[in-house]
């Protein structure tokens, strides 16, 4: 269908007073040659919207350019049923952000110029914009693979099945239940938060195994996972037998391994058979008799050493979250068996958050003794058992306890293979014949999930805890963060939702987080490719595989639509229907560059639309004023910034370019994980470009902008403009 663009310019909210709207109409009509241009004094009002809708139904307008306020407001009003919609920000940028004193003709002229340039860029953009066609494949699957048959995995599978989807549960061992199956009882999860609860594994396993929507594979591992969300082909290996399933998404719930106690000599491990781990203690309690391992005598005096290997820079640096509570639980086991039990909790900090404080009190009420201190020495006791010397911090003395058992509350190490995201291994290197990876992904960036820290495979563990950097693959339970049983079950339920959401989004051809619902995805003009591999290496989500020659093999359903590949590509072969190197290049070239002697520099700002752009809006709302010489182009992510645009800007005559992106580094805020970091790396190469153009490298600068930095923006922008003004004008203006 022929694109027919309607352009609507609002004169409300002071736009009409500040700007020559008729001149704007003229630019859209005469200069940009848009077929239908109208102005209205209150475009978002019922009459304004009706005007547009009427044109769409009667005049065949199917692409709409609105020149009014920020695209972040009045979204509901302008939901017009077309994907070809763009908004030119006149109000916030060209009116509110500029200081224009009454009668200052120059300032008024500058303001008008900014508005006109904004409109020009909008016109070019809408012209270049094509409707995204959602990616579809008739062989999409909505089934979901769950790896790991412990509490988290079983819960995930059951929740998926109960919602009406099919779950394929793969468990490495011969039975379901995982770590919890080896436990005696579990800690309280319901009021009054004091009583031990029966082990839930058997009941849950029976439900899972009996569920019509769940297929269970035991003694099975994943030999290979190829494909992408909706189209994952998973090879399930069961002994010598390999079966293939196609699934839409995957939940990794492979749990944890207790920290290796053999590394805990300093806590007495190896001193005596009576020094055991909490898991061994669970098994002993489950078997029925709590006894000294050395001689089988009743173990009535039991000490529990918390943080055994956790919160320790020589071992696990993090807190394993559940050990306090499960040690408290184990103290009650002793009490259950022996009325005259003596139980000692050797702790650093008791961490029983929320209502678990009641459980702490319960254990005290049952006579549990809490000693804040470190184990100094463990020796075999004179009458068997152990003598444990503790640096008692509350008594400020070294004390020795006689106990029958010392239980080391070893922490949790996630059972998931991760890879350093900054050095992803190429295909084939890490994936050996021996199956030791959870998913064995056939991804160009390696068979493992990228880690964030300490081997945990997520990306934004505060705001978007389920997101790994592999689209459609979610983690649940202790595989992604140390947690206890109740938390794992909640976590598993959430992961089930994310997995379901992924298959439903894929079915609609829509992106998942963070550009949820986006139907666009990049296409690759393969004939232009020089096999430089930048796109395949840089995609933060590993969406792009490679063929043997190094050509990119793009997987649309792995794509999060950030455009990092587009920014990476020196050949400009990667484009979205509605976002491309060509489009942004054409927009910036459309800006009118005043003559060199006009003393009106032009500064281009590329602003990340997630944080910087909202901050610019907030600045405008708060009355912050910036130089009228800047022209702002929002980007999906600074990762999509292509260096060609800098060259284009310079050759067009812009005097400077300012890049505004999110914080990167360890505490990164980039929604696409690596976008702003990659932009900075690319920028380090820009001086080369500038040198080639014989320009000062100071002309291009990148700043980290936080969404709350609205108050800092005038300073940042205006001082950059001032710096640029100190330089001679860009000599390319004349060309």
């Amino acid at each position: 269908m022929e694109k027919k663009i309607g352009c609507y310019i609002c004169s409300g909210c002071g736009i009409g007073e500040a700007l020559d709207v008729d001149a704007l109409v003229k630019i859209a009509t005469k200069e940009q040659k848009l077929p239908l241009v109208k102005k209205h004094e209150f475009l978002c009002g019922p009459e304004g919207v009706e005007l547009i809708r009427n044109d769409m139904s009667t005049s065949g307008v199917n692409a709409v350019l609105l020149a009014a306020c920020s695209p972040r407001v009045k979204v509901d009003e302008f939901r017009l049923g077309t994907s070809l919609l763009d908004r030119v920000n006149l109000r916030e940028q060209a009116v509110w952000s500029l200081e224009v004193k009454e009668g200052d003709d120059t300032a008024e002229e500058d303001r008008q110029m900014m508005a006109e340039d904004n409109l020009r860029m909008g016109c070019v953009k809408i012209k270049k914009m094509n409707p995204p066609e959602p990616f579809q494949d008739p062989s999409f699957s909505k089934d979901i693979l769950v790896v790991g048959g412990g509490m988290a995995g079983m819960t995930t599978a059951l929740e998926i099945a109960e919602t009406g989807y099919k779950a394929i549960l793969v468990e490495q061992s011969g039975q379901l239940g995982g770590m919890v199956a080896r436990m005696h009882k579990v800690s309280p999860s319901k009021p009054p938060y004091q009583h031990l609860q029966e082990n839930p594994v058997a009941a849950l396993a029976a439900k899972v195994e009996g569920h019509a929507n769940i297929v269970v594979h035991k003694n099975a591992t994943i030999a290979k996972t190829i494909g992408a969300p909706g189209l994952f082909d998973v090879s399930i290996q069961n002994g010598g037998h390999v079966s293939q399933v196609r699934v839409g998404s995957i939940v990794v719930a492979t749990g944890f391994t207790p920290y290796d106690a053999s590394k805990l000599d300093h806590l007495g491990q190896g001193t005596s058979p009576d020094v055991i781990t909490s898991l061994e203690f669970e098994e002993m309690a489950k078997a029925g008799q709590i006894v000294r391992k050395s001689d089988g005598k009743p173990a009535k005096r039991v000490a529990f050493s918390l943080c055994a290997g956790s919160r320790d820079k020589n071992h696990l640096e993090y807190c394993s979250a559940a050990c306090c509570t499960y040690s408290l639980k184990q103290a009650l086991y002793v009490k259950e068996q022996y009325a005259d039990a003596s139980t000692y909790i050797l702790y650093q900090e008791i961490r029983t958050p929320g209502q678990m404080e009641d459980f702490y009190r319960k254990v005290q009420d049952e006579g549990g003794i809490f000693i804040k201190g470190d184990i100094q020495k463990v020796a075999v006791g004179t009458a068997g058992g152990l003598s444990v010397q503790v640096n008692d911090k509350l008594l400020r003395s070294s004390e020795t306890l006689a106990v029958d058992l010392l239980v080391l509350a070893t922490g949790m190490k996630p059972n998931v293979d991760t890879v350093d995201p900054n050095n992803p291994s190429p295909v084939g290197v890490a994936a050996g014949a021996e199956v030791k990876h959870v998913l064995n992904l056939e991804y160009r960036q390696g068979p493992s999930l990228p880690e964030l820290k300490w081997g945990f495979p997520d990306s934004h563990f505060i705001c978007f805890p389920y997101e790994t950097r592999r689209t459609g693959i979610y983690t649940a339970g202790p595989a992604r963060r140390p947690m206890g049983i109740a938390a794992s079950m909640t976590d598993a339920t959430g992961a089930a939702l994310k997995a379901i959401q992924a298959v439903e989004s894929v079915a609609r051809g829509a992106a998942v987080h963070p550009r949820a619902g986006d139907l666009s995805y990049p296409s690759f003009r393969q004939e232009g490719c020089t096999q430089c591999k930048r796109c395949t290496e840089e995609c933060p989500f590993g969406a792009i595989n490679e063929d043997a020659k190094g050509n990119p093999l793009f997987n649309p359903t792995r794509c999060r639509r950030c455009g990092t590949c587009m920014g990476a590509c020196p050949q400009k072969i990667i484009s979205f229907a509605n976002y491309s190197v060509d489009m942004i290049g054409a927009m910036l070239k459309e800006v009118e560059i005043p003559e060199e002697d006009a003393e009106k520099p032009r500064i281009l700002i590329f602003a990340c639309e997630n944080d910087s752009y909202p901050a610019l809006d907030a600045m405008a709302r708060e009355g912050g004023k910036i130089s009228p010489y800047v022209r702002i182009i929002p980007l999906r992510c600074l990762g999509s910034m292509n260096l060609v645009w800098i060259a284009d800007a310079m050759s067009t005559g812009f005097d400077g370019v300012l890049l505004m992106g999110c914080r990167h580094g360890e505490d990164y805020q980039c929604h696409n994980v690596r976008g702003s970091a990659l932009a900075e790396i690319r920028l380090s190469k820009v001086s080369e470009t500038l040198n080639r153009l014989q320009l000062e490298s100071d002309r291009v600068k990148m700043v980290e902008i936080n969404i709350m930095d609205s108050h800092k923006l005038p300073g940042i922008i205006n001082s950059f403009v001032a710096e640029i003004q100190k330089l001679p004008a860009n000599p390319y203006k004349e060309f």
Partner: protein
Amino acid sequence: MAYDLSFARDVYKHSEMGHWIKMCMQCGVCAGSCPLGPHWEHSPRQLFQLVRAGKKEEVLKSSSMWMCTSCYNCIVRCPRHLPITHIVHGLARYASEQGMVDPKQPTHRFAKEIFWKNITATGRVAEMLLTMRLYFADGLAQGIKNGLEMQAQALGMLKTGRLMPLPFRSKIKGYAGFRAMLDKAQELEAKHKESKA
């Protein structure tokens, strides 16, 4: 060996409100709430941890529980609702029963040897007698010295009709029953202790 729980268990059972000691979470609120804080050997919190650690000597010989003014600040502020005032009183009495209290401990001497005898002798306090016994507890010479030091106070009270000049008072009418009741109560308490032990 520390943290042998036999002492703690004895205290839990036999010291008034002693079982609450289990519930202390060692936060320290009690210590800063006590008006006699500067004079403590151990704050209540420390006493409780020492009890749990089995430090019998240290606990029972501590002067701390004799420093209680019964102001109840610790009780109302304790986040675990431990009846600290009562626990401390209980420990004081427990120490006394075990014969572990320094015979010169002034509050012990006053409370046990003078006050309790005074009230149980007649059923009511005889204030003048109480005062005299107190002053003369360390012998005649010290008593006269004490008395002279406090002469102004006593005279003021006498002049305003707030001190009975006679040291002795008559028993309450139902004294026989009162005494029998106390004996019975003591007997019951002793019996409970045996059965618990």
